[in-house]
Structures are given as C-alpha cells and as structure tokens.
C-alpha cells in the first residue's frame, strides 16, 4: 500500500485513445475497444507509482463541456464537484485545434492539468509537427507527447502525475479574459457564489455558466450544490461571445505550436472515404464487409465448437463415471452432469467460438475508424424514421450487448431520439443470440449444401437476418417518432475521425481474451444456476409429469398459434436472465422427455429437434422470435436505469415481443395455408 491516495481524472475527445492511455496506466484491459465497452459512465482503475497509489477515473469522451449532452454533464459535474486532485486531458496530435476547445474549458475549472498529446505516431506519418514545449508554454501546464498504443510516453506521463500530485508542481494558467461587459457581470455573480465553491476558479467557471443562463445547467447547479443565482443581465450574445473567445484562443495556440509539413496530409483518408462512403460503393461495401465477417465467423467457429463439445463430452463422462464409482447417489450425479455441467458446457462450446471470432473482427473495423462511416452512410434512413444517425452506432453496440447499446444511447443528445434508440436497441441481435442464430441457420437452412456453399449461404442468411433487424429498428423507430414520441428534430453533428491502421495483433489478443472472460463469467454466473433450476423443474414430478412438463403443456396451445411449441416458449421465458441459455433449456426439456441423447454435433441437434416435431417453419419461427422478443433481464434493468421510467421499460419489453409474435403468427398461418392448398 502506498502512503498517499490521489485521484486523477482522465478527460478527452472521443477517439483520441484516452482509454488506451488509461488502460496502459492501470493495466486494465477490459475496455480498449470503444464500441461494446464504450466509456459511458465514469470507469475506475488503480495505478501505483513510486509507492504512491492513485485512483484513476476515466470520464466519458466529449468534445465540449457546455453543449448540453448527458455525457458532457457527467464529465463536467465530476470535474466541478468531485474534486479530483488533478486531470489528465488526452488530445489527438492530428487534430489539435479541435481538441484544444475542451482543454481550455477544463483549464477554466482547474489548473491542475497535464495535457497528453497522444497519437504522435499518426501525426508523424502525416508530417504534422507538434511543438510540445510551445504548447506547454502557451497553456501554462505540463505537456507530454505519447503513442499510447506502443506505450511511448507512458513513463513520462506517470512521472508528471507524480510531480504534480506528490511534489505539488505549480502550473501557470492564464485565465481567458472575455469582453469587459461579460467580465463585469460575471464578477457580480462570482461575489455571490464564491462562498459556496471550493475555489475561485470553479466559482468563476460557474459564474460564466450562470451568465450564459442555460436553464438545464441552472437547474442542475441548484440540485447539486444549492446555488441558485440569477444573472442581472441576460443577453443572448454572451453565450456566443464566450464560445467564440475560447475557439479563437484555441486557434492562436494551435497556430503557434503545430506545423503541417505536408498540406495534403489527409489525402489518403479522403481516397478511402470516397470508396467507403460513395453513392455507388458505400452501402454495397458495407454489406460485403459484414457478409465476409459473418462467413469467417461461421466457418471458423465450426471446428473449435466441435472440438470443445467433444472435449466437454469426455470430461462430463469422466466426471459421471468417477462420481458413480465413488458411490455418489444417482440423483446427485444427474443434477451435476445432466443439469449443471451440460448447460454450462453448451454455453461455453457453442457461444464462445463465434464470439471469439466475430468480436475481434468487428473491433478491427472499429479501430480502423469505420463505425462512424456506417452512421454517415445510414443517416438518411434514420432521418426518415425521425431519429438520429448516431442510432446506427448504438445499434452497432447492441450487436455486442444490448445493455451496452442502451447505455451508449447517451451519445444522442435529444431526449426523445435517445428514448427511441433505447427502446428499439434490443431489436438487433446481441452477442448472446448470434451463436444460436448461427446454429439454427446451419442445421436447418444450409445443411443440405456442400462446403463452401453451405457456409456462404449461412453467412448470406445471417446477413439477411441482420438487415431484417435493422429494418425492424427503423420501422419501429418511425412508428414511435410519429406517435408516442413526436419530437423536434435535434441537430446532427458527427465527427468522422481519421483512419488509423488497426493494431490487428493487439486487438485479436485482447478481444479474444475479453470474450473468453465474458463467456466463462456468464457460464458460471448464469448458465450454472440456470442448469440447476431447469434440471429441478424437469425432474421434480407431481403425479406422472414433471414441473417443466406441466409448464410447457400449459402454454403449448398458446405457443402453437405462433408456430412455436410449449418447450420453445418456456425456454424463452426461463431464458429471461440471458439469451445464451435459451437453446440449452430447449435441449434439456426435449431430452428429458425422450430418452437421453448426446448432442456432440450439430446434426444430432437437428435430429433431436425434428424428433420433437420441428419443421423448417418451426425453425423459421424460432429464428424470428430469437430476433424479436423481450430484452434480457440485464438489458431491462439498464433501460430502467437509463430512463428512470417503468412505463418506457415496459414498452421496451412489450414492443419487440408483439413484433416477434406477430411475425411468427403470420409465418405459421401462411405456411399452414400453403400446406392446406398443396394437399
């Protein structure tokens, strides 16, 4: 344990590698990628340096503290009211002028700042020269250059943090002087609130904000520290004058400290953009990229999946025989092997390989800077649905995890558009549903084809499924925005960051490791207890029928209206805690009814399902219901946390369910009609 405790906050624009710097210092690698683990609330980490221990706080990435989005409010409130000992602002060396806006705003709150100019390697490639000494002199705070992805500059940064905290190194930040009129009015407010603030700088910052007279900010200030002061003079121009002054100051500092040795430094990026976002190739390339990713996932996942499941089968048999040999009761053996282990092993062997392939591929696209281009390409469609183009990004996060996607909706500023994005997020299939979709597709729809046509066909089907989910998202958003959530359109600004060579090796290592941890954790936390409960339900008999049988039989009639059966619907209901366990529940329910079957390969799964009356129509209905049903419990809780409203949480639960049931009803009715006519 160190002798001191200091808190260091990390701020910065999105896409500047702030999380990489943060992870580099803390050794925490959970959220390197920006999309599934995007920093949307304050993440914490620890660092120890020269026997001193530090708490590091990763603030949400923002361009400003003052334009009123939720993320900005989180960052601003933390800096103003949580009193961190110092702040590290991470900025992008290739885009310094834009980044300085945030730096200058933060310097108005605190002078205990270190500026970390990251991505120096990228700047070098573009022949952008940053004069770090000049920058430091102009800003009045220490500046360190870094390339966090290769670790360059990290030890200097640590030393600087140490100097500023332990040695209390001074900084010399000039305050920005505004027009005399503003200074005079701000001073009046300053005098009234000085007593309630921690220091003069924060008091001045808050005075300026009160002078700007933003309703929401005033309300927040009253709630958080009980300051409620009306400015004597309200002028709309004040806001403009303050914002302009900061921008101009940023421009001056930028011009004196950055030199472009190659004026055409972003020519290459524009060439790439012309291909990835043009009218003729933009959307086809997007579909092709996803198609290829799905294909690689499906083909690649097959082998490790089979290998894992036969490995687990052997382990399970070994445990079973060992337990039996040492005289364990048969019922206990069955609880452990048929209940707990079988479900857990299923989750690991079927879920892990596709995730461990899909995620790194997706993260590489993200690392490259492609995701904002998706939002750029698709914005028109979201606009037509009355929603925000950034919903394309929260949708992408939803592919990872709907709960993450829901939290990620904070990047959308307008409350109603944000609510629509939250409610519709679960319409895109998450992590926990992908492998089940892949399994259904490969055993029912493409099994009759030979390699490589079967996998290509699977990938195309999966792509179609994704396109369907995107259409459903757009349609439901349109419905919401024209009925319940009519909203005034908010402005749309989306930064298209420079492309960067993705660190393929690093991404793969981290992302695969993350997925393994994620899946193993879910296997232990959710699949194990679920396996136990399902086994109990399937094996506790009242009369000559198990509890599970009573349950499935009681909803069987209802389920059949929608082309499903009692077991399938029961599996979805019991799988509410996690979508990963829906398939294993079905398997266990079916196997407990018939004689015990092994399912160490997919074709046996096919026979198990068909033996229980599945047709291709059943499979299609299950597929559709997998896509559109109530979000898992974690997502529901997150929706409640984000909306603070039971009404909207219920709506987010009910809407996709109605959509799924309606689609299944139509599919099964139409197929019945066709069959009747055919016969």
């Amino acid at each position, binding site marked *: 344990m160190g002798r001191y405790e200091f808190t260091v906050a990390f701020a910065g624009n999105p896409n500047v590698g702030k999380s990489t710097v943060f992870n580099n210092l803390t050794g925490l690698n959970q959220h390197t990628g920006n999309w599934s683990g995007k920093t949307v609330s304050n993440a914490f980490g620890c660092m120890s340096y020269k026997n001193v221990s530090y708490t590091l706080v990763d603030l949400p990435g923002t361009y400003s503290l003052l334009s009123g989005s939720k993320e900005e409010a989180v960052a601003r409130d933390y800096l103003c009211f949580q009193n961190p000992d110092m702040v590290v602002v991470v900025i992008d060396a290739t885009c310094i002028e834009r980044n300085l*806006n945030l730096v200058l705003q933060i310097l108005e709150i605190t002078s205990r700042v270190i500026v970390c100019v990251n991505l120096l390697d990228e700047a070098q490639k573009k022949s952008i020269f940053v004069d770090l000494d000049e920058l430091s002199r102009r800003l009045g705070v220490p500046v360190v250059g870094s390339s966090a992805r290769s670790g360059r500059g990290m030890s200097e940064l640590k030393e600087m943090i140490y100097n500023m905290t332990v040695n209390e190194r001074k900084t010399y930040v000039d305050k920005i002087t505004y027009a005399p009129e503003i200074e005079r009015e701000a001073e009046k407010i300053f005098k009234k609130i000085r007593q309630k603030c921690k220091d003069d700088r924060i008091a001045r910052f808050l005075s300026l904000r009160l002078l700007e007279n933003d309703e929401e900010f005033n309300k927040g200030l009253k709630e958080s520290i009980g300051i409620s002061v009306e400015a004597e003079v309200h002028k709309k121009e004040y806001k403009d004058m303050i914002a302009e002054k900061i921008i101009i100051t940023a421009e001056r500092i930028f011009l004196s400290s950055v030199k472009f040795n190659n004026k055409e430094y972003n020519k290459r990026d524009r060439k790439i953009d012309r291909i990835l976002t043009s009218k003729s190739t933009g959307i086809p390339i997007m579909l092709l990229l996803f198609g290829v990713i799905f294909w690689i996932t499906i083909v690649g996942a097959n082998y490790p999946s089979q290998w894992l499941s036969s490995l687990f089968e052997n382990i399970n048999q070994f445990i079973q025989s060992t337990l039996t040999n040492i005289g364990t009761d048969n019922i206990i053996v069955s609880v452990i092997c048929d209940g707990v282990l079988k479900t857990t092993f299923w989750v690991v062997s079927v879920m892990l390989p596709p995730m461990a392939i899909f995620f790194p591929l997706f993260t590489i696209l993200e690392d490259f800077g492609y995701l904002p281009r998706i939002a750029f390409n698709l914005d028109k469609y979201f606009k037509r649905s009355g929603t925000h183009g950034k919903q394309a990004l929260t949708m992408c996060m939803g592919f990872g995890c709907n709960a993450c996607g829901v939290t990620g909706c904070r990047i959308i500023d307008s409350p109603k558009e944000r609510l629509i994005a939250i409610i519709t997020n679960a319409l895109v299939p998450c992590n926990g549903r992908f492998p089940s979709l892949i399994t259904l597709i490969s055993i029912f729809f493409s099994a009759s084809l030979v390699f490589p046509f079967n996998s290509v066909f699977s990938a195309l089907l999966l792509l179609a499924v994704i396109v369907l989910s995107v259409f459903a998202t757009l349609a439901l958003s349109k419905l919401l925005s024209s009925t319940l959530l009519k909203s005034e359109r908010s*402005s749309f*600004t989306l930064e*298209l960051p420079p492309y960067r060579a993705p660190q393929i090796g690093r991404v793969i290592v981290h992302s695969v490791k993350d997925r393994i941890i994620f899946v193993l954790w879910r296997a232990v936390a959710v699949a194990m207890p679920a396996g136990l409960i399902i086994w109990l339900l399937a094996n506790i008999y009242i009369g000559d029928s198990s509890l599970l049988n009573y349950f499935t039989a009681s909803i069987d009639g209802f389920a059949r209206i929608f082309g499903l059966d009692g077991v399938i619907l029961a599996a979805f209901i019991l799988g509410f805690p996690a979508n990963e366990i829906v398939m294993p529940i079905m398997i266990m329910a079916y196997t407990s009814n018939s004689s015990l079957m092994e399912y160490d390969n997919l074709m046996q799964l096919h026979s198990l399902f068909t033996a229980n009356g599945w047709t291709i129509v059943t499979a299609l209905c299950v597929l559709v219901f997998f896509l559109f049903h109530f979000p898992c419990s974690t997502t529901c809780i997150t929706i409640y946390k984000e909306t603070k409203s039971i009404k909207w949480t219920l709506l987010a639960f009910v809407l996709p369910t109605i959509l799924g049931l309606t689609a299944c009803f139509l599919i099964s009715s139409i197929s019945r009609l066709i069959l009747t006519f055919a016969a």
Partner: protein
Amino acid sequence: MMYLDKELSLLNSLNIGEKCVVRGLTSEGKERRRMLDLGLIQNTTVEAALKSPSGDPVAYYIRGALIALRSEDAAKVQVSAL
C-alpha cells in the same frame, strides 16, 4: 469585419471541394452552442469534403476535423465566398 459587400449564402449550398467563410448562425439554444463548439464562428473557413451515399449528410472540414452535418443543419450556417 467588412464582409457585407459579399453576398451571403448557406453552407448546404456548397459543392464538394469548395471553400467558404462562416458569417453567422441562425440556430438557437443548444444547437447554436453545439455549432459554436465545433468552431463555426465568424471568419472560420469551411470546406465541403465528402457526400454520403444519399447526398445528405455532407462532411465538412472545420478547423482540421471532418464533421458531418445534415442539410437542414448546414442551412443554419450563413457563409460567403472565400
């Protein structure tokens, strides 16, 4: 700031590859603040850089960053020829 001799037009009328100078914003409230925070203040040079597949939004170079704006938002930025 003698720019009145030049005719005002709106940012969304700019063709790809063309540059212009910002003269003012017509938006209000939060939206206005967001535009200012992007650096869209008087005398800022802006270049239209990239069209999305459907022609809207368009991405502009604003102070070294590439920012996509929808046509109706760009219509709230008054500009004049460079």
